[in-house]
């Protein structure tokens, strides 16, 4: 006899076994980290100028990269899922490239394209005096390049599963394509947008290889927290661990709040 009111769609008890293994697998390292955390260092790290700069920069650039991903990535996901155009398969393949390219190589590729001597970058420089490499916007570019595919793939997948019939109904009520997308499709996509956004933000926040290669590691300018952690590992790993814990606290807090809030309004679960 099952517990009263436990819906038939909830998992059977046996599923708890692999689930608990998964939790332990993900949780034990964190416990280890907290256990051996250099708590005494935390204060020093928290008041160090470099750490704070890095933390701030990380949050700002990861947010900006996520926004970039939304502004150009969601339209691309929409096209990939719903439009017929030549080269669609190629475009879809292209989206997976930054996922599998080792980030350091991704950084090199970015330099080759948008660097001062890159195939497009040289014109930026000569025509508008804009340089991306080794600047904070460059960090955003590196993070967006690496993280955007996460949003695109999540949203495209969700769009494909979405029941287009309610969107058709919206059209008969006089809503144009953009209105339908904004007022029907996006709200229905909310859970996928939140999940994709979380993955993108997280990936951007943790970005290391592409950033250090494309944007360098200039404290206060391009040194994000993962870079600071890397530099910090030199000599004293405990400082680096302390730094990561701060990053962890801030970002997990933010993500949990965000997801809980959005998922609640998005889905009816």
């Amino acid at each position, binding site marked *: 006899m099952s517990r009263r009111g436990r819906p038939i769609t909830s998992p059977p008890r046996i599923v708890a076994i692999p689930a608990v293994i998964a939790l332990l697998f993900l949780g034990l390292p964190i416990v280890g980290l907290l256990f051996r955390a250099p708590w005494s260092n935390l204060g020093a790290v928290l008041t160090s100028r470099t750490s704070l700069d890095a933390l701030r920069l990380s949050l700002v650039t990861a947010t900006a990269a996520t926004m970039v991903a939304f502004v150009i990535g969601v339209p691309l996901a929409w096209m990939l899922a719903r439009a017929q155009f030549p080269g669609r398969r190629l475009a879809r393949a292209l989206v997976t490239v930054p996922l599998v390219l080792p980030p350091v190589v991704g950084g090199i590729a970015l330099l080759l394209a948008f660097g001062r001597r890159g195939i497009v970058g040289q014109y930026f420089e000569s025509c508008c005096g804009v340089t991306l*490499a080794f600047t904070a916007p460059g960090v955003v570019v590196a993070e967006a390049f690496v993280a955007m595919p996460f949003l695109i793939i999540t949203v495209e997948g969700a769009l494909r599963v979405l029941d287009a019939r309610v969107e058709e109904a919206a059209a008969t009520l006089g809503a144009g394509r953009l209105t339908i997308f904004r007022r029907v499709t996006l709200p229905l996509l909310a859970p996928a947008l939140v999940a994709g956004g979380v993955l993108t933000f997280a990936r951007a926040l943790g970005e290391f290889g592409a950033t*250090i290669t494309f944007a360098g590691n*200039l404290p206060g300018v391009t040194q994000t927290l993962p870079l600071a952690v890397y*530099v910090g590992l*030199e000599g004293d790993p405990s400082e680096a661990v302390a730094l990561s814990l701060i990053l962890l606290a801030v970002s997990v807090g933010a993500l949990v709040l965000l997801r809980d809030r959005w998922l609640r309004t998005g889905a009816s679960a």
Partner: protein
Amino acid sequence: AAHSVQPAAGSIAGSITVFAASSLKGAFATIGAQFEAAHPGVKVIFNFGPSSGLATQITQGAPVDVFAAASTKTMDSVIADGEVKAASTFAANSMEIATPAHPTRSVTSLADLAGAAIKVAICQQDVPCGAAALTLFSQNRIRVTPVTQELDVKAVLTKVQLGEVDAGIVYVTDVKAAKGAVIGIQIPAADNVTTTYPIAPITNSTNGSTAQAFVDYVLSDAGQNVLRAAGFLSP
């Protein structure tokens, strides 16, 4: 942004960007502070990273004024690309065996590293500390099978510190910087290997005079004292 306001040619002012190998972080931070104190209004921005990565960035047009590498090979590649005319050697480093603060297996000399039960970490062979470790083993005629070839020296140090390996080949300066987190076992000078650190101003630097002044400062007694305090050898 660092280059927006440029001083008149020849004056020591404004800001410069220094690309330096990660292992120089501690010493260069101090030298930078001293240099800024000596030249009020000057700002030194450091970009620490793996030497080779820094070299790639420089050849791709990174806004940099000074490059300090951990190996002459890397510096030579930058010279070959024409970004640097000539470099000066400003420091040298030698190797040391690092063991965990609470070792499980006793290691007291280079020869012990050949033991089958001893887990050894070295740097990978393409970075200076890895090349040095291999030279060290061959010139002392010992056969060591490392369990890992770490990407850089600090990774070796981390492994030692956490007790994952029983010993690692690192720079003397690293043991010093670890401040007791690892135990260093010195290698007799006769058996040891030395690497050298070249430094150079970048040819296209927009603030060449200050760049040159910084290079000069590193090579000066004041600079050398800081390096020696950190465990570096004189070139």
